[in-house]
């Protein structure tokens, strides 16, 4: 059987029952890694031996009838800003190049508890700051669909690993779209859960009030599986919600006929042109065909999303990244005196984009500028949140449809020179992080090119309504399969 094409959900079941060897299943992905990793560069760390040992252990348990877990024997690629005990966790940064945590992130603990196997750590924009993975200090990741193009970011390694068939499942992290945007550009499924749905314990912080860990997978069913494993209250994260975790798989194939899907008109403006626009219009048409009700809605403060996001994300980042001072872990350079050691370590350890954002974040929090920038952004954030709650409430929406990214994958270096233009890549995704609700990117009609370039459709849900957007995404996925 074709392991790489089988859903992870199905594979876990077969491994549990002993009908599929975890070692064989893993081997299929290790082969894909041997074939493609050299050109794609999705991983920063792969521990083949440890993964194989874990798989063989699973197989021994299975033959004794003792194999357990929803991810039984399934390998998972983990973004390198999520702590893995005993496996280095670099955040794509020189400053943490040799950092080996002795603790697992909550999500990693959950994966292991459900029988999953950590396959390796994936490349990313340094500290998750970027939208192309070009900001990694430790390696280049290419888009498996077109190696001359970026995979998106910041979870570019995770998206590329799944797209290249090197891992059935991957974890990414979001601050402004870092799961959905690379999922869109690589042609895989990527979900940003509601803030508080998945514990952030062990996720190296970029912007704490926006960060959230999300699954990437080749299909909606697998994204639902990994979300189900990782979601739920964790007493180590004060922002983790007590909201009950539903069985996401149970309602996945329920019909979507009659659901009210809003299309925010502000998302169809000048930043959505050409192929992006065509792809989106066709996707909306497909939903009409499926019997969904398409509703015109307004998110009036959309214009202010990127500004608000830039200020809040960088302000929090400037504080979150203060701990990298060369004292307790991480790169240390310069030894003359305290002041010099801290500044040298940080200057040598952080890349240019990280420094830019620390500088901006330090500025907007500074006395004399706090009210004019940071406080204003927090207020604008309230308006952006209200946009969503009003749209969902007053228009009684089940979900909203928008493109996940304005354009398909771009070529290396195309936007690297212009940070502001790079920030605008997040224009369709960042609002959801500011509002705190959930959204998924699912492969939609690609942009015509040779080869065709993937584009994602974004389905935005109300807070803690992951079940609804997964169901809509699954219906769309099936309709797309029927088309091809």
């Amino acid at each position, binding site marked *: 059987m074709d392991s790489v094409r089988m859903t992870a959900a199905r594979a876990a079941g077969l491994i549990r029952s002993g009908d599929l060897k975890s070692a064989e299943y893993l081997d299929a992905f290790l082969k894909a890694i041997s074939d493609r990793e050299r050109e794609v560069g999705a991983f920063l760390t792969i521990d083949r031996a440890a993964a194989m040992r874990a798989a063989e252990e699973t197989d021994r348990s299975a033959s004794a009838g003792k194999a357990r877990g929803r991810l039984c024997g399934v390998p998972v690629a983990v973004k390198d800003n999520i702590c893995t005990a005993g496996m280095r966790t670099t955040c794509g940064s020189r400053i943490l190049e040799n950092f080996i945590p002795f603790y697992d992130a909550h999500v990693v603990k959950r994966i292991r508890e459900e029988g999953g196997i950590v396959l390796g750590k994936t490349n990313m924009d340094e500290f998750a700051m970027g939208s192309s993975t070009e900001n990694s200090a430790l390696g280049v990741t290419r888009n498996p669909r077109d190696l001359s193009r970026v995979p998106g970011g910041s979870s570019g390694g995770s998206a590329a690993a799944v797209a290249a068939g090197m891992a059935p499942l991957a974890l990414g992290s979001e601050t402004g779209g870092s799961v959905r945007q690379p999922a869109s550009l690589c042609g895989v499924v990527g979900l940003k859960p509601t803030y508080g749905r998945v514990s*952030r314990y*062990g996720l190296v*912080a970029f912007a704490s009030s926006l960060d959230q860990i999300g699954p990437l997978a080749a299909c909606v069913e697998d994204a639902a599986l990994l979300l189900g494993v990782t979601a739920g209250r964790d007493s*180590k994260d004060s*922002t983790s919600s007590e909201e009950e975790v539903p069985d996401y798989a149970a309602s996945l194939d329920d019909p979507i006929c009659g659901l009210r899907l809003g299309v925010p008109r502000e998302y169809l403006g000048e930043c959505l042109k050409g192929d992006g626009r065509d792809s989106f219009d066709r996707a909306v048409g497909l939903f009409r065909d499926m019997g969904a009700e398409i509703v015109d809605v307004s998110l009036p403060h959309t214009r202010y999303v990127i500004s608000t996001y830039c200020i809040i994300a960088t*302000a929090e980042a400037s*504080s979150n990244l203060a701990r990298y001072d060369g004292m307790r872990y991480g790169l240390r350079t310069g030894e003359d005196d305290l002041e010099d050691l801290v500044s040298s370590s940080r200057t040598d350890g952080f890349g240019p984009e990280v420094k830019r954002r620390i500088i901006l974040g330090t500025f907007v*929090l500074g006395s004399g500028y706090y009210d004019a920038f940071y406080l204003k952004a927090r207020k604008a954030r309230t308006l952006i949140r209200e946009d969503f709650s009003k749209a969902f409430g007053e228009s009684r929406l089940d979900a909203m449809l928008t493109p996940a990214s304005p354009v398909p994958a771009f070529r290396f270096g195309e936007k690297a020179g212009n940070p502001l233009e790079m920030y605008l890549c997040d224009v369709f995704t960042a609002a959801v992080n500011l509002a705190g609700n959930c959204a998924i990117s699912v492969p939609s009609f690609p942009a015509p090119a040779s080869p065709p370039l993937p584009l994602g459709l974004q389905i935005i849900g109300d807070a803690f309504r992951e079940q609804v957007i997964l169901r809509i995404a699954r219906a769309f996925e099936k309709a797309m399969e029927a088309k091809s």
Partner: protein
Amino acid sequence: MTGWEMVVGLEVHVQLKTRTKMFCGCENRFGAPPNSLVCPVCAGMPGSLPTVNRKAVELGMMTGIALGCRIASRTMFDRKNYFYPDLPKGYQISQFDRPLASGGSFRFPFGGGSMEASITRAHLEEDSGKNVHDASTDGSFVDLNRAGVPLIEIVTGPVFRSAREVSAYLAALKQLLQYIGASDCNMERGSLRCEPNVSVRKAGSTSLGTKTEIKNINSFKSVEKALEYEFRRQTEALESGGRILQQTMLWDDVAGSTAPMRSKEEAHDYRYFPEPDIPPLEIAADWVERVRASMPELPDARKRRFVESFGLREYDAAVLTASRDFSSLFEECARLWPNRRRLCSLFITDLLSILADEKIEVCDSRLSAQSVASLLRMEEEGAVGKNQVREILAELAKAGGDPPAIAASRGMVQLRDEDEIGALVTKAIAESPESVADFRAGRGKRAIGFLMGNVVRAMNGKGDPKIIRRLLVEKLENQSRS
């Protein structure tokens, strides 16, 4: 120096007596081996997150209530950003514009009367680690055991006009916090730290001068010294035409002087902003009421009760209630021993000095109300004398035990055999005809005192003094008549 007035406001940091730290489950304990009480959270390891200790919040609420503050219905944590080797995250989690408690006032005894200090605010925060310095090497060493220990910072308005007022406030604050069990307030161990803001002005002026902040005051004794020094330094500077710079001064206990902090005085910009890892904390009114109801009796109330229900003098009641544990022990004893005046003198004259001499805290002592009552019973029955009572009490405080057993093991039990004592009394009188003469001449007190001494010595102090005295009087009277 005359004509100048000192104006002092206080920031007092107090470590809260919790089992675990403010934001993680590591033990909150003094004196453990370096870096042994540390986890990813308090070490600021990447990916770690804070969780708020309920007990710390409740002790903070109690402190606020005891200081007459309003408890916020919604309180928030904020980040105070600065770099320092003992600050693992590069920021301290503190509270900025929504403190747990604010707007209180605290009345404390001063100079025979009392004085009131306005309490601006009391807020929760985490302690930093500790930097250890070693003169023999080029480096400093960081121990993070203290990092994350819960603190409450209590801020007064600029209400103090003398170092003595500050001392009196600190003593009362310490007593209060110990009473409510919020802290042990041990300044030498750093569980209470005080940072005065000091300025001076011409007497009668209503404006405030430029203030300096004094850090590194490590004992109650140093507080007054540091304030007096800084007052003198500022007035001398102003009188000689200089001006005061707003800066942080470090107190040097050995030199007995303050000096500006040597590190470059950057304009500190702490960039406070709401801690995104901790959602705001809603405090419902009924929670505040539950905490209020669970609070132990405060020192003032206990003192009044001691006066009223035990018939003690105001002064004695104040001494007895100075510490919660001491007064609680007294109260337990009072339930078992009805002679409160004797109990009171035992506690104030004997026990206080025993504890001070032996450097024992009441809570560490092995005393029990039962053993104290048993000791007083022995005394009442004449089995032991006053000096022996004190000796046994000291033993009880140090090692505990059963008073009769202690007395027996030390050979203290008094001889009460009247024949034996009578023989010695007769012998003493026979050996001292001048005492008999004194007695006859109406100088009985002197005669008995002299003879008592001889008999007691002859019995190695083991004779029951009451019996000796009675027999002496009887025999002397007999002799006078014959």
